[in-house]
């Protein structure tokens, strides 16, 4: 789609730019109109698109399941209730399969993580130009609609999970038990530095792998959609349709993996010795 006004690389760059709100160079607070302004904002800025879309989808999730929960009866479920029960049953069987401790928080957490990520991943299947074009029409310079292609979102979730892991590790094993776990194995107390290094890497790798796996997969998927969009329009569907169909699997799988790993990490936090 090489046009006079926009080269391919500009097109791609435009699609990968977040709608960022922060401190502008002229001293006011506002939305960055280009990549340079966004970069200049530094840490204290917000990706408005990521925040708003993820918030909206979280609200959708709460709305769907809240409605289902209020309509749930002991009779034969229909429609929405049936669907919600199906999902809850699936999550519960996953939790029962991999979580051995006793914690009523894990299953709702798993459901929330799964469905929220699932909905956010589905945004990937909206044609890549739709939302940015709509945003442009409304006077918004950029809009990246898939929150899970923003490492801020994936790291936000994985750090949340990480804090829960730390909290339950200390709660179940005690501070001493947790520190002991980090320092006294696998080499015994004389290999303390090596133990701390190995267990520390092990611990830190949990949130990083969680976040990067999801981000990497979704970002790559989005990137390929954008690359396909550069092809002549009558040719695009030959590639983008198979990729979209394949993505049905990917979005489900990535949400499922994030959820399962969350359960597994929390399970490890609940076990005295692993």
């Amino acid at each position, binding site marked *: *789609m090489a046009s006079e*006004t926009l080269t391919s690389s500009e097109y791609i760059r435009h699609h990968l730019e977040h709608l960022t709100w922060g401190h502008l160079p002229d001293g006011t607070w506002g939305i960055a109109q280009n990549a340079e302004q966004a970069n200049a904002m530094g840490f204290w800025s917000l990706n408005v698109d990521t925040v708003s879309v993820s918030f909206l989808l979280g609200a959708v999730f709460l709305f769907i399941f809240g409605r289902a929960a209020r309509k749930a009866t002991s009779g*034969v479920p229909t429609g929405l209730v049936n669907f919600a029960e199906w999902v809850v049953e699936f999550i519960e069987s996953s939790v029962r399969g991999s979580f051995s401790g006793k914690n009523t928080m894990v299953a709702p957490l798993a459901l929330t993580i799964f469905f929220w990520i699932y909905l956010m991943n589905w945004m990937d299947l909206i044609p890549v*130009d739709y939302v940015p*074009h709509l945003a442009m029409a409304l006077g918004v310079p950029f809009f990246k609609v898939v929150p899970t292609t923003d490492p801020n979102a994936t790291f936000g979730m994985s750090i949340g999970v990480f804090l829960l892991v730390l909290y339950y590790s200390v709660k179940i094993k005690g501070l001493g038990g947790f520190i002991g776990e980090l320092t006294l194995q696998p080499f015994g107390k004389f290999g303390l530095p090596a133990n701390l290094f190995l267990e520390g890497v092990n611990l830190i790798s949990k949130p990083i792998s969680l976040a990067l796996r999801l981000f990497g997969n979704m970002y790559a998927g989005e990137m390929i959609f954008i690359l396909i969009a550069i092809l002549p329009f009558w040719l695009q*569907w030959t590639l*983008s*349709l198979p990729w979209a169909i394949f993505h049905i699997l990917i979005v489900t799988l990535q949400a499922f993996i994030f959820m399962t790993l969350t359960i597994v990490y929390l399970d490890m936090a609940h076990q005295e010795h692993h």
Partner: protein
Amino acid sequence: MNINATLLGQTIMFVMFVWFCMKYIWPPITNAMGERAKRIADGLAAGERGKSELDLATKRSLEILHEAKQKAAEVIAQAEHRAAQIIDEAKSDAKEEGERLLSGAKAEIEQEVFRAREALRDQVAALAVAGAEKILRQEVNAAKHAELLKSIQGEL
């Protein structure tokens, strides 16, 4: 960034994608949902049926128990009746037997009395004859006077 045919290409793809989902993704999901609802409905119906069957069985068992009790009472009453009958029969049998024995004994006694009387009569006759012989100091021809003796014997 400007609007151009890319949007058209994506729309083509999007329509095809939606069609694909409608054709191949949606039906299995709705089928699964339908099956799940049906399974639950069946389960609930089975539970309901089981419950009503249990009620029925409880009622039936109570009926059977009641019937059995009634039958048992009947059997006991019959048995008591029969026992009374047997006792009555035994009583009447015993009475009859006793009476029979009594009458037998009476008859025997009568016979004995008769026989003793006969013997006594014979002896008295002989005594009378002997007495008469002595009185008449002559032999009475037994053959000749048999008739006479017999009449005496009959009078005694």
